[in-house]
């Protein structure tokens, strides 16, 4: 029975194998050996798992199931082979029974379906690629059943027409999407021609989608006929909007390029591989003065370029690309040049003008130069403006230098200040300028001016007006300078102060000059005062001579007249006595005047001594001891505050003698004189006061002539009007002054300010 099976199995045209319960081959078909590339000897008597070591545990488990009676059928499964290949197989594994009805082993029937499987996969792949392609290329398909006029769309068609998935397309309905009626009519005719003559369709139409977007579409279609009868009209519709758009853009760009090339304000010149001009546009004609006909195919750019600039250009290119210029085989033209720089072009008439030119090399795929494109614009105007700006900047610089001025710009929000070069120079800065903030500047402000500067800036920010600010600053080199700042305050649209722009001028010298002027003015004032004082003294002197010298002379004249009239000796003796009196008086006056003149003329300042006031007072009281004794006067000195004064000693003694002597002379009748002499310091000046309790003087009446020569205020026999006159002369000669306060019958106080 088994033997019979064996023969049967061996002859079976399909792949079949018979195995015992130990999975050892009993018999195999020829097909099996072919399918698995085995020989009979390889197989029979060997274990299945030894022949196919790649068989996994899951299959082994299935086999065990079958040995218990199960049937395992699989229609297709990949069988990864030990050599790495995949074999697609189907199988039918079931047990066989011996005569006793027991399971004798397994019958395996397999088939190699790898070829079919691969074809199937290939188809799937192609379909998938097609789908992807139509998706990307936005190609939809359509099909019209000519007998039913039914229209079928693929998914993409729905997308292109922008209709919902449940939309039912019809032939007439589809044509409704066409934007133009003429396209619609053409399409209808095309369909008719397809039906009538089987002719194909190729048309471009513009459509409006369901959502109102414009779509350019290319429609291709052909007819399928069976036995000469057209049954199907099918084809594709491709959304070519993007392509059309790109085309349009390209068109536009092309036109723009054309416009640029034709522009009369831009020079476009190209050369060929030999350097000969092969394009010369309107702009080039207009700016260079040559016609295109004169240039193209005939001239090289050298005709309008400057030799030096061309030379420099070549050198720069060599440096830029780091090449060795001495290499004979080297040609700069082959470099990937794209250079923009200023050139000087020479017109046909020989005049020149500056241009900004971009030169681009056109190299072929081997890197060999095939020519250049030069695009240039006339920058003479720009250059002129630039030069003008440059010149003005230079002028500003110069002006700033001359006027010792700099300018600055302060962004308050970001606290960034920019200073002009001159401002740095003004503040003795050496080296590169740097950006600064308010703090940097403020730290340089002189300590005594910091408060002023801070307040000024605060106020300027607040009221948005920057008044004139002058302050001292310590420069980078440590010098003190006086600067004057003027500024404009700039606010934003919200009215907030955001910027200040201003100037800063070094006014140190003018400030010094101003100070010198002030000093000179003060000196002048002092001189003027001195002069006016001297004038007054001169006037005083005139007054004195007029009053005090004329009076005795007048008396002498009068006495002489009377003398001539006198009738007897007694009278004459009497008159002579009067002569004596007048002459005595005249002598005294003259002596006083001489004394006063000496005081005024001599430089009393030269005979200064440190004077002990107590000593002077003592000397004075000794000199006046006689009158002090007879009048019972008390003279007190209080020099605790100032005990010594540097002064002319003779004058000081004279002052004490006159004032104390006067005080005793003009004592009140009913009381003994009491005189207090006191020294003080007031407003930095030494002061001595002489206070008495004497007669006093009515200063309202006599104040104006108190210190005059020969002025007397009392009917006192000894009043001569000389003492106070001399005292005042001496005090004033030493740069001081003397004043008096008095109350009649109470006393008088003389105050001397030294």
């Amino acid at each position, binding site marked *: 029975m088994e033997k019979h099976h064996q023969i049967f199995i061996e002859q079976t045209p399909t792949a079949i194998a018979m195995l015992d319960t130990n999975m050892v081959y009993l018999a195999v078909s020829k097909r099996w050996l072919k399918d698995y590339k085995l020989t009979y000897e390889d197989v029979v008597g060997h274990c299945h798992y030894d022949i196919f070591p790649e068989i996994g545990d899951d299959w082994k488990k299935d086999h065990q199931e079958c040995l218990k009676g199960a049937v395992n059928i699989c229609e297709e499964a990949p069988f990864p082979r030990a050599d790495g290949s995949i074999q697609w197989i189907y199988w039918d594994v079931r047990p066989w029974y011996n005569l006793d009805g027991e399971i004798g082993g397994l019958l395996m029937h397999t088939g190699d379906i790898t070829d079919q499987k691969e074809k199937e996969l290939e188809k799937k792949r192609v379909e998938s690629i097609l789908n992807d392609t139509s998706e990307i290329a936005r190609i939809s398909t359509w099909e019209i059943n000519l007998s039913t006029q039914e229209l079928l769309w693929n998914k993409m068609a729905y997308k292109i027409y922008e209709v919902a998935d449940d939309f039912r397309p019809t032939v007439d309905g589809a044509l409704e999407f066409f934007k133009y009626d003429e396209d619609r009519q053409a399409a209808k005719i095309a369909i008719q021609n397809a039906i009538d003559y089987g002719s194909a369709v190729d048309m471009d139409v513009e459509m409006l989608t369901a959502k109102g977007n414009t779509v350019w579409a290319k429609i291709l279609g052909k007819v399928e006929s069976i036995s000469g009868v057209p049954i199907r009209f099918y084809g594709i519709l491709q959304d070519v909007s993007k392509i059309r758009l790109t085309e349009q853009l390209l068109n536009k760009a092309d036109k723009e390029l054309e416009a640029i090339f034709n522009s009369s304000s831009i020079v476009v010149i190209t050369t060929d591989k030999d350097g000969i001009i092969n394009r010369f546009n309107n702009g080039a004609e207009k700016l260079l003065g040559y016609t295109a006909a004169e240039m193209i195919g005939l001239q090289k750019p050298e005709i309008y370029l400057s030799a030096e600039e061309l030379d420099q250009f070549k050198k720069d290119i060599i440096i830029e690309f780091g090449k060795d210029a001495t290499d004979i085989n080297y040609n700069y033209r082959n470099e990937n040049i794209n250079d923009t720089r200023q050139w000087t072009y020479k017109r046909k008439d020989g005049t020149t003008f500056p241009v900004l030119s971009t030169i681009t090399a056109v190299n072929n795929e081997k890197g060999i130069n095939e020519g250049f494109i030069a695009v240039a614009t006339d920058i003479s105007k720009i250059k002129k403006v630039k030069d003008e700006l440059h010149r003005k900047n230079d002028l500003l610089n110069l002006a700033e230098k001359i006027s010792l001025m700099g300018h600055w710009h302060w962004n308050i929000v970001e606290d960034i200040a920019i200073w002009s070069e001159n401002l740095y120079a003004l503040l003795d800065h050496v080296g590169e300028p740097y950006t600064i903030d308010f703090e940097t500047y403020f730290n340089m402000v002189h300590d005594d001016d910091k408060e002023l500067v801070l307040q000024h800036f605060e106020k300027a920010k607040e009221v948005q007006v920057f008044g004139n600010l002058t302050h001292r600053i310590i420069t980078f080199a440590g010098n003190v300078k006086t600067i004057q700042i003027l500024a404009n305050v700039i606010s934003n649209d919200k009215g907030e102060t955001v910027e200040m722009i201003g100037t800063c001028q070094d006014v140190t010298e003018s400030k010094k000059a101003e100070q010198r002027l002030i000093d000179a003015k003060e000196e002048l004032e002092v001189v003027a005062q001195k002069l006016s004082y001297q004038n007054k003294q001169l006037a005083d002197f005139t007054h004195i001579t007029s009053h005090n010298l004329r009076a005795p002379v007048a008396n002498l004249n009068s006495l002489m007249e009377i003398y001539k009239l006198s009738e007897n000796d007694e009278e004459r003796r009497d008159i002579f006595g009067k002569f004596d009196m007048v002459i005595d008086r005249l002598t005294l006056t003259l002596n006083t005047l001489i004394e006063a003149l000496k005081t005024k003329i001599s430089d009393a300042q030269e005979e200064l001594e440190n004077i002990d006031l107590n000593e002077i007072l003592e000397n004075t009281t000794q000199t006046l001891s006689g009158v002090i004794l007879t009048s019972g006067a008390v003279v007190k000195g209080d020099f605790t505050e100032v005990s010594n004064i540097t002064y002319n000693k003779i004058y000081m003694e004279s002052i004490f003698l006159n004032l104390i002597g006067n005080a005793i002379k003009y004592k009140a009748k009913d009381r003994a004189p009491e005189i207090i002499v006191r020294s003080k310091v007031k407003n930095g000046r030494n002061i001595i006061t002489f206070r008495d309790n004497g007669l006093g003087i009515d200063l309202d009446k006599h104040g104006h002539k108190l210190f005059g020569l020969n002025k*007397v205020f009392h009917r006192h026999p000894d*009043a001569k009007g000389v003492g106070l006159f001399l005292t005042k002369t001496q005090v004033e000669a030493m740069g001081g002054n003397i004043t008096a306060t008095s109350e009649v019958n109470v006393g008088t106080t003389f105050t001397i300010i030294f």
Partner: protein
Amino acid sequence: MNDVLKTCIVDDDSIYRFTMVKALESTKFPMEIMAFSDGEEAINFMLDNLEKDSVFPDVIFLDIDMPIMDGFQFMEEYVKIKPRVGKKITIYMVSSSLDPVDIERANKISAISDYIVKPIGLNRLKNIIEELLEDRRS
């Protein structure tokens, strides 16, 4: 009215007073001479005799520079009492000063007839007295 001219000298200079008196006496005109050594003495005399101005002088030779009360101060006081004085008094300001300030100041006072610079001189004095006497007679 008697023909005696009441003449007054106000001056602190005793020599001047002496020469004036002598000079006036030498003219032999009928006159009565009084002298004061400063303005205060003179004004006091007038104030004391306000009720009987017949004793007032007809003419005053007034010095400027005097102690206690000078010539100008006297004029201030005199101007105050003048409305109460019935008698016409001619006042000459007499000074040794050539100071234009003094002269100007004197000229501004309407009560002063003239400014005379010392020494007056005998002839001038005579003329003045004669004129005054003429006036009185007319």
